[in-house]
């Protein structure tokens, strides 16, 4: 393959895209300059492909090809349909923040209830003042593209000591067909604060769309944060999300991601443990069918001593679907007494299903306990026969074993209601199989 040609091809497509969108992208002149710089970096790199090590298993040039034009801002009719989708996906008791095709919609959000407890701005507002939120440390083309194109997002700040009385649910609703939405959000959690944040990606009739999201999460000391991401995009959609997480000292962080949608998805998380004594859990489940491609790539950076990190990941892969898990644990020279472990298991439900697991440990300290494990296999025939001999039909027997398999990751969700909600998503996915 001639890389130079492919890059130029992609670059040109984006170049048109950027030029036509530029007038609609919010920000001060300094911000627009930062966007242009990010875009130029993207244009130079092009979409990631399989010869870039981090993207070896998720070749966006082959899987996605080109970036679609920016979605138009939703009109009144679209917002009415979005309201129905929000209602269908809202988690009981949570306070909603809604983005429709990449645009924050206050009317669909619980702004009044939220501002009594948290600081809330939109990305659009923030970019009128400065470009800081567009600047994330990265040489990754999709992150640069997101910085160039981000139209909106939520900028949340949870004050020191705040104990949120209800979870916050950010709902991304896709309405437009054959268009892209670029969002970028910030969640800043203060010292001693306690918060649960849910992010849902859903479609309301949208087809063949692309989502690019970036989330910058900063968590202070002595905090307790749960973050649950539910990706249920349309079966022909693309969702590329990057998370940048910095964790302070003596803090507990519990991340969970569930992917049950999108033709191509990648969640890449860059997590830095920057304060001692913190405990990080990052767990996830991919439920993939047909030709879906779901990638979870995590880089956990133990920058300081005495932190614990745990990653439990489960993939259930049917038909010709493809699940990717890449987990890298970095232990810096000073980060003694680090305890970092990851375990990933893939369940292949068909002969053509594919799982790629790539664990990496980069350890520069000498007094640490780190480990990883990876397995891939089919359902155990002896277990299936036992269940069938007790009266369970094939699909029901499979469903029971699959639930048990993903349960090992789902049970890490501490909140009873949210855990049940996620179990319900898995159950419905399994029902659709049978």
């Amino acid at each position, binding site marked *: 393959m001639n890389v130079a040609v492919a890059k130029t091809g992609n670059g040109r497509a984006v170049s048109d895209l950027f030029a036509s969108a530029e007038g609609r992208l919010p920000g001060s002149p300094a911000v627009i300059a930062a966007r242009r710089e990010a875009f130029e970096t993207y244009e130079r790199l092009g979409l990631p492909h399989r010869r870039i090590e981090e993207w070896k298993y998720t070749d966006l040039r082959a899987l996605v090809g080109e970036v679609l034009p920016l979605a138009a801002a939703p009109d009144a009719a679209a917002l009415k349909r979005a309201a129905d989708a929000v209602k269908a996906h809202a988690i009981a008791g949570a306070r909603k923040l809604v983005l429709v095709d990449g645009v924050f919609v206050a009317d669909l959000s619980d702004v009044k209830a939220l501002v009594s407890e948290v600081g809330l701005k939109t990305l659009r507002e923030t970019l009128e003042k400065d470009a800081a939120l567009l600047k994330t440390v990265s040489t990754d083309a999709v992150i640069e593209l997101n910085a160039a194109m981000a139209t909106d997002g939520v900028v949340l700040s949870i004050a020191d000591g705040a104990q949120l009385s209800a979870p916050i649910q950010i709902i991304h609703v896709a309405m437009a067909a054959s268009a892209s939405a670029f969002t970028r959000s910030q969640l800043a959690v203060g010292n001693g604060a306690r918060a649960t944040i849910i992010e849902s990606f859903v479609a309301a009739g949208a087809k063949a769309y692309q989502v690019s999201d970036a989330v910058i999460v900063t968590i202070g000391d002595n905090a307790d944060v749960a973050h649950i991401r539910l990706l249920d995009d349309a079966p022909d959609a693309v969702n590329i999300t990057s998370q940048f997480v910095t964790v302070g000292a003596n803090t507990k962080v519990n991340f969970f991601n569930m992917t049950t949608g999108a033709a191509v998805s990648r969640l890449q998380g860059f997590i830095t443990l920057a304060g001692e004594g913190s405990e990080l859990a990052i767990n996830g489940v991919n439920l993939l069918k047909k030709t879906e491609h779901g990638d979870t790539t995590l880089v956990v950076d133990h920058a300081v001593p005495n932190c614990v990190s745990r990653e439990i990941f489960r993939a259930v892969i049917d038909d010709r679907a493809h699940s990717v898990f890449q987990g890298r644990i970095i232990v810096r020279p000073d980060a003694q007494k680090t305890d970092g472990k990851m375990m990933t298991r893939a369940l292949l439900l068909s002969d053509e299903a594919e799982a790629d697991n790539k664990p990496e440990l980069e350890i520069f300290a000498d007094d640490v306990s780190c480990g990883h494990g990876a397995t891939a296999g089919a359902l155990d025939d002896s277990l299936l026969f036992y269940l069938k*001999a*007790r*009266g369970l039909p*094939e699909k029901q027997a499979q469903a029971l074993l699959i639930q048990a398999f993903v349960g090992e990751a789902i049970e890490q969700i501490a909140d009873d209601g949210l855990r049940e909600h996620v179990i319900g998503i898995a159950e419905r996915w399994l029902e659709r199989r049978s």
Partner: protein
Amino acid sequence: MALLEVKDLKVRVEEREILHGLTLTVNEGEVHAIMGPNGSGKSTLSHVIAGKPGYEVTDGQILFKGEDLLEMAPEERAAKGVFLAFQYPVEIPGVATMNFLRTALNAQRKARGEDEYSTPDFLKKVREVSKSLNIPQDMLKRGVNVGFSGGEKKRNEVLQMALFEPSLCILDEMDSGLDIDALRIAADGVNALRSPKRAMVVITHYQRLLNYIVPDVVHVMSKGRVVKSGGKELALELEASGYTQFEAA
């Protein structure tokens, strides 16, 4: 009335024939023991009746209540009333025993067109049976057979037998891996389920089990056939003389 009729059954595993024309009739209310040396085909027979994959029936038939059992999927056989108590019950991590019992029972009832059990009725029944089998309640909250001792696993099989109320119970080497006390508890549980409408086929290598579950008929299997049938005294005879006389035949 004949509950189970195995007629001239020939079975292959991969390229090897294990059963060479086995015939066996079990009537309602009867307890049959099948004895025989290792490799005589006892467990193969139990697996073929339950519908385990990997066995090829090349000739003969199995009728259950007059219906062709070999045409049915394993779960259909279970719903019709065939129950195999496994020699080595599998461990299923992550599937709570209670959830498994309820799911299985309701799947069988659904297949028969019956209403699902109500939760209070189900719990009452499980509690009753588990108490009589000396199964502690916390065992039912654990994953199916996970961390169970050999005796607990066998008692869990008997518990299912009592809950599902099958008309044919096949006990495959129930005594393997059990000490005398564990064996007695399991056997008492089985005896409590003897009824004029229910038949049992007890597969065992040793006569010992038959002191606890006393059979009406004893069959001796050798080289894939039933070579001799008789009353319960046949088991004692075997204990004294061994299987050699049949193996020579």
